[in-house]
């Protein structure tokens, strides 16, 4: 470096001032040496993006490689990646699949039902739901070769070795078997000291997804027990008839001590299971519940404001426009239907990706909305589970 003082460079003159500080000159000399030997860090270029994308890509580019009929009401859609290798996931996690239906861009999260060690594809197992906008579209219109975008694997419903222990019980209702089977395979691969008990509940035997595979795994592995519960079975059905109950859980499991309970199924099933588990003394910390979308009928929730009689409200997006939305519909859905895109993944109030700020007007936040304390102070809501109850203005 030249010794001429750069007039812009004030620090240069102070360098001399600082020279009298013990150690200053030595430190300057060290620094000068590093400047000779060191790297300009150009080798790091792009490294952060690459590293992050291998574990947590923002989007996956997927192609349907196969569609498997599971039951009359259920299909498994197999997706391969047309881009980078599929990222690893923890058994129980989901991806959020983006779709365009009749000009509406939306998305739905589905649990990955293929095994974690299956590196070449993800399976999503989809069951028909009454009035299901996306599920029914996928069941009716998807075929091999179609292309999709999705998020990377997400979600907090998975086996956590830090505290879940070795004695696991999974209460699966209907399509809740999708994460359950992935978790089961993961646990079986961990060895025989684990035990996994699946209580699998359905209305009809026609609905039993993966049942042959589950039965044969149960025969093969002593550490896996399968209890089938069907509420409307035919006469010759060998499993439990009727509904899951606290008694049934207690009788099939014996002690609840040290057990960890996973619950995944339709919302009424989940609510019911939690109630039954609590009634037999299972503490909160031993129950893991999978998120299950926005409440279908928020008007029936106890906190819903009673004063509302309007059917529609006006939603204004600051600086961008406004539209009418139905009372009782999640804000995210009406935004999407009106052409606004908001990042989202869980669509159940948990991940917070869909946050928007309410500038004016009121919004109903059900218990599903896992808001931060400061969100409440400053008006941020999770649009996937936020229900406008009057005209609102939002910012995002």
């Amino acid at each position: 470096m030249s010794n001429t003082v750069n007039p812009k460079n004030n620090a240069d003159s102070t360098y001399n001032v600082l020279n009298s500080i013990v150690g200053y000159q030595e430190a300057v000399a060290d620094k000068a040496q590093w400047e000779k030997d060191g790297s300009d860090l150009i080798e790091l270029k792009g490294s952060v993006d690459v590293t992050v994308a291998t574990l947590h890509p923002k989007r996956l580019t997927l192609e349907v490689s196969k569609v498997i009929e599971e039951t009359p009401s259920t299909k498994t859609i197999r997706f391969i990646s047309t881009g980078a290798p599929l990222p690893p996931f923890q058994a129980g996690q989901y991806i959020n699949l983006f779709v365009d239906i009749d000009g509406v861009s939306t998305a739905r999260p589905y649990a990955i039902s293929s095994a974690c060690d299956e590196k070449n594809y993800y399976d999503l197992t989809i069951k028909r739901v009454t009035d299901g906008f996306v599920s029914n579209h996928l069941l009716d219109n998807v075929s091999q070769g179609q292309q999709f975008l999705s998020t990377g694997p997400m979600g907090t419903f998975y086996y956590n070795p830090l505290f879940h222990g070795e004695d696991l019980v999974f209460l699966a209702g209907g399509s809740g078997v999708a994460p359950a089977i992935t978790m089961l395979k993961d646990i079986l691969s961990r060895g025989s000291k684990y035990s996994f008990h699946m209580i699998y509940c359905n209305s009809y035997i026609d609905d039993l997804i993966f049942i042959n595979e589950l039965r044969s795994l149960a025969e093969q592995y002593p550490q896996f027990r399968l209890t089938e519960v069907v509420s409307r079975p035919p006469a010759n059905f060998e499993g439990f008839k009727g509904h899951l109950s606290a008694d049934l859980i207690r009788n099939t499991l014996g002690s609840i001590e040290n057990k960890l309970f996973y619950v995944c199924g339709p919302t009424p099933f989940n609510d019911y299971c939690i109630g039954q588990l609590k009634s037999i003394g299972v503490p909160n910390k031993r129950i893991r519940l999978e998120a299950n979308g926005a409440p279908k009928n928020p008007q029936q929730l106890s906190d819903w404001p009673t004063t509302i009689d309007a059917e529609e409200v006006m939603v204004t997006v600051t600086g961008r426009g406004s539209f009418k939305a139905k009372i009782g519909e999640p804000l995210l859905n009406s935004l999407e239907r009106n052409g606004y895109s908001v990042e989202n993944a869980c669509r159940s109030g948990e991940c917070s990706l869909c946050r928007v700020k309410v500038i004016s007007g009121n919004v109903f936040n059900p218990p599903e909305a896992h808001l931060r304390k400061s969100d409440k102070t400053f008006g941020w809501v999770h649009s996937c589970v936020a229900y406008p109850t009057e005209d609102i203005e939002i910012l995002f």
Partner: protein
Amino acid sequence: MNNYDAIVIGAGNGGLTAATTLQRGGCRTLLLEKHNIPGGCATSFVRGNYEFEVALHQLSGLGTEKKPFIMRKIFTDLGVMEKVEFVQEGELYRIVVPGEFDITLPASWKGLKTVLKAEFLAEQDNIDVFLNLCEQISMESFMALPRARKIGSDEVLKSSCPTFIKYGLVSAKDVLDEFFNDKKIKTVLAAYWCYLGLPPSQIAFSDLAVMIYAYAAFKPWHIKGGSQAMSSALLESFLEAGGDVRFNCAADKILTTTNTDHTSEVKAVRTEHGEVLSCKAVISNASSVLTYNELLDTGQPPVSVQQDFKSREIGTSAFVLYLGLDCTPQTLGITSASNFICSTMDEELMHEQMNKLEPPVATMLTCYNFDDPSFAPEGKSQVSLLCLQYGELWNDVPPDKYAETKYALADKLIEQAEQVFPNIRDNIEEVEVATPLTMMRYLNTPGGSIYGFKQNAQDSNLFRDRIDAVEGLYLAGCWNGMGGFQPTYMAGESAARAVIKQLKQKETANV
């Protein structure tokens, strides 16, 4: 609107205070954030009934209402003082080396002296001298040193900063060795090296001294609702002043023009969505490495930047467990919000271990609801368990071994903490593990660094000029100064003041 006075890239602490200062100072400002929420490190997340603080362990620089310090003024100027509530911690920290000692230092300058003297009878006189030294150096660093530098007078420096001249740049280790014989008291007093990320032999004594003095005299603080509450309050203040913000919108390029004298000047920012937004100045809160090596459109970064980078190294990241525990702090045996648990008194060893994917020998445990129950659901506890770790280590972990590696290490951290606080595991209701790669994902920093470059003596502004190779481009955050909350809040504010000044000058020149 596509035309701004200033664009701020990144809504971490530095970006938020920069944007708010700019907008309140009359500059039309756009704040771009890659993620969906403001804060960078200063954030929180929700699991079940818990809201977890991500990064703030102890806020410094606030002072009490009676004895306010600089952050109170800055927060007031930023319009957020009324929007957040602070909680004072009663203790600096408890430090335990099982089998050796277990000492709790109170958050009071007088109390600190008393406790240390009672614990280390043989070192009583040295304690007085040492703590006076810390106080002196702090005073000189806050006022006299900047003044002497501004004036540029050697005489002024000598007369007003005698302690700093003698000890300021000596390593913390050398100073502790000079004053104390007992290894234990040295370990107790050096504990805050963790907040800098380098062991006492590699940090300037002034940096340690200022921390000890400032935390004891001006208290350590938490923020109700977590540091997220401050981040959201800053954003609110920015929006109230008329600022524009875009989330899920990373800056992809900083576009420049080349002037006739071959210097370049900022003219716009292109977003990840391809939109070009013009501006007169850019303050980047993203890492300087990203800013100059990737965002800047000049191809090669300016020579002065290359030169600067050559004398730097990427600083430490962290491995953290966020624990929601189904029991009270009392049940766990917690007697202080901040705790250091070490299985050795050798800080060099602790630092070496940060370079290995092995069980750490030093961990930090923070219990947020110890001083204020509102930080956790009733009857429960919000605890973070952290060890510092270099991010580079994780490059070699294959993706399909990532989860396994992370849980194996997390398990060891719990084991270490359980030496002092048994029954952690049995009470886990929620747990989330963050590795250096998690930090990398959310901060976009090389190595997932949380404090910027390694914070040795040469990292400080005594050895660095502001890089002004590109006109209108400023940095604000932990990459051009100290890391940590107070320094980065302040860095954003001062970068914004510099921009406001520059824009005013330009305006006058153009009239």
